[in-house]
């Protein structure tokens, strides 16, 4: 009826608009899927085996010092009222060389650092050194915002509940106690230490904290966290930073110190040891436990059997699937052409 008159009104006829673009059209054919699954399966089994071997080679030593049992050396520290600076000693032996560098962690259980209100209870402006927030902390910090009429610095429950047990490790050699040197440098993330947390630009640092209160549970204010080293004082104190990095799970482990120096840089040799704990942190009220953990690390981190086993499981599943498909293919002869 209508002739092909007006050519300007024609719709555009490019490959894009007329759906004629060159394309790759993959097909899930038997020749691709069966070898594919086999390759994936074998690769995963290989990774799983590697992970398991590495994980098994990592040494871990855990010492529970909560003190709930009456025969535990730290039991005296759990009786109420909570005494300050109750010191207890744990003796243990190491049977094989604990390969270095050795990392010393403290572990807590049943402690939900990831609880929403608790985890959000802090003021990042304060912690990055902004003095205006020293005078008026953020409302997120309630109820640890003001005390005795003065603003709390650093405010919030997360900072308030900072872990305050301290440890000293001695090796008992010929009846004498040798102090094992601890290294506390760089235990927190570099980005936390250099970017996220900054001290206010004041010297001396103490003056910045005029007319402020220390957190309620702390025994000393932030500017006295490490008086011997000014780069480890105030908000950039390594232990404080490690605590403020909220753990995801209720049973967690946080790095306390490294053993890398002196006679112990190759590890902890065989022998008797004594761990002296200054027990300050109460955990009985929420049925938590405290542990001191020694561990070494590898390219995949700490000891983690879950990853190795999961890889092995998935790998074997893929191999089994590939075999099943091969059998089905042989039996039913997938139709190739119609």
């Amino acid at each position: 009826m209508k002739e092909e008159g007006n050519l300007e009104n024609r719709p555009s006829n490019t490959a894009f608009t007329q759906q004629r673009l060159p394309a790759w059209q993959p097909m899930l054919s038997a020749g691709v899927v069966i070898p594919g699954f086999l390759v994936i399966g074998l690769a995963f089994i290989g990774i799983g085996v590697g992970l398991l071997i590495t994980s098994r080679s990592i040494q871990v030593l855990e010492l529970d010092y909560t003190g709930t049992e009456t025969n535990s050396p730290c039991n005296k520290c759990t009786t109420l009222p909570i005494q300050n600076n109750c010191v207890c000693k744990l003796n243990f032996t190491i049977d094989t060389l604990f390969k270095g560098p050795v990392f010393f962690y403290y572990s807590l259980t049943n402690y939900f650092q990831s609880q929403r209100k608790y985890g959000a209870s802090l003021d990042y402006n304060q912690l990055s050194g902004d003095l205006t927030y020293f005078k008026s902390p953020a409302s997120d910090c309630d109820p640890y915002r003001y005390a005795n009429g003065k603003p709390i610095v650093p405010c919030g429950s997360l900072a308030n509940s900072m872990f305050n047990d301290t440890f000293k490790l001695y090796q008992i050699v010929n009846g004498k106690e040798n102090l094992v040197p601890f290294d506390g440098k760089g235990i927190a993330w570099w980005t936390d230490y250099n970017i996220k947390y900054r001290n206010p630009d004041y010297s001396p640092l103490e003056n910045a904290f005029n007319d402020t209160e220390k957190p309620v549970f702390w025994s000393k204010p932030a500017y006295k966290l490490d008086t011997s080293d000014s780069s480890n004082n105030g908000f950039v104190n390594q232990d404080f930073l490690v605590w403020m990095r909220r753990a995801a799970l209720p049973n967690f482990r946080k790095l306390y110190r490294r053993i890398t120096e002196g006679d112990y840089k190759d590890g902890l040799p065989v022998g008797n040891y004594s761990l002296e704990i200054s027990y300050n942190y109460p955990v009985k009220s929420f049925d938590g436990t405290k542990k001191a953990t020694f561990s070494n690390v590898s390219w995949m981190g700490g000891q983690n059997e879950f990853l190795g086993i999961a890889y092995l499981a998935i790998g074997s599943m893929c191999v089994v699937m590939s075999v099943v498909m091969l059998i089905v293919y042989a039996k039913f002869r997938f139709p190739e052409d119609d």
Partner: protein
Amino acid sequence: MYGDDSVFEEAIIAEYALVINGHSLAHALEPQLEVLFLDLACLCKSVICCRVTPMQKAQVVELVKRHKRAVTPVVGDGANDVSMIKTSHIGVGISGQEGMQAVLASDFSFAQFRYLQRLLLWFITLFNIVYTSLPVLAMGLFDQDVNDQNSLRHPGLYKSGQSHLLFNKRQFFLCTLHGISTSFLLFFVPYGAFSVMVKEDGSQLSDQQTLAVTIATSLVIVVSVQIGLDTHYWTGVNHLFVWGSLTMYFAVLFAMHSDGLFGIFPNTFSCVGASRNCLSETSVWLVILLTTAVCIVPDLFIRSIRVNLFPTQTDKLRRLQQSRKKQRPQEQNLRRVRRTSSRRSAYAFSHQQGFGELITSGKNMRANRISSTCPHERTAPSSNFIDNVIKRTNVVSCVSFGSPNKHQSDTE
């Protein structure tokens, strides 16, 4: 499977056509007769309503909409078709001779009738797409499981769409179930792996922000792989959108965790350093790989079993298409599709008398067309009445859209 009011119920044994004019239609559309009229009309292959008013056109469309479980497409080209276009489910306007009123009122418009063929086949595919993200959009725009020639050659492929095989309650439920199980795995696999995770230098890795970054990254990768598996036709645009959205994710992630943004808004961008510390660890990438595999491998397995053991017509055609890709010659124009027994009744409307003579006289045609026609074919307005009637009925038959191009007017 089909309800009582579905259009698939009617089996057309003989080829009947119903012709009804406006005056009779006025009676047929009365409340006590309309259902009877509709049933009769649906038993016919073609229904021609002539000399009807625009209002009656809309009334017939509405009658079909109300009583039949069918989607009503309507094609019109003039201002008198606007009410009909607006009443229908899908209105198609043809631009041109009669102006743009129909186009302005319609959902789709084109310039020539024959384009309707392609529109009919592609519409159902578009209608089901309500996604938002770019890779899925690219898939919706460019994906072709079967190319266009084969689609037209095998219209039976569209049956699965018409009978709601591809998007129904069961499919939706399975989709939801798939989503729930994927999110379950996406959380619990990293959760299990993170129980004791430390970095290579011994410092903490099992913190909240690292877990969040790991899970989010796994999610984006799983979703991208999933859309990759669903895409049958990888054009350049698909590649761009899929890889591009992955790149965008990482770019935005690192931007949000950067020092600069933290400096300006410390409280909002408090995750500074999280992605840097997290994604530079081998163990985290192993967790991401594991999570991706756990989510994708079962799906891949089921998919390949289904495609190879129980192939649908689409799958068979795709395989055939691929094996013959190089040999088949390029077709320039579509071949006329041979009509099998149509199960849809088509309706045609004609306007009231008065325009037929005017149109055939050629007075309203454009200059270049008139010059090519023979002048002696123009008829004088006051000719024999019978001749006029004959000519008019021929003109009327041109506008029935159940069979494009099938009836040719003698005067053309």
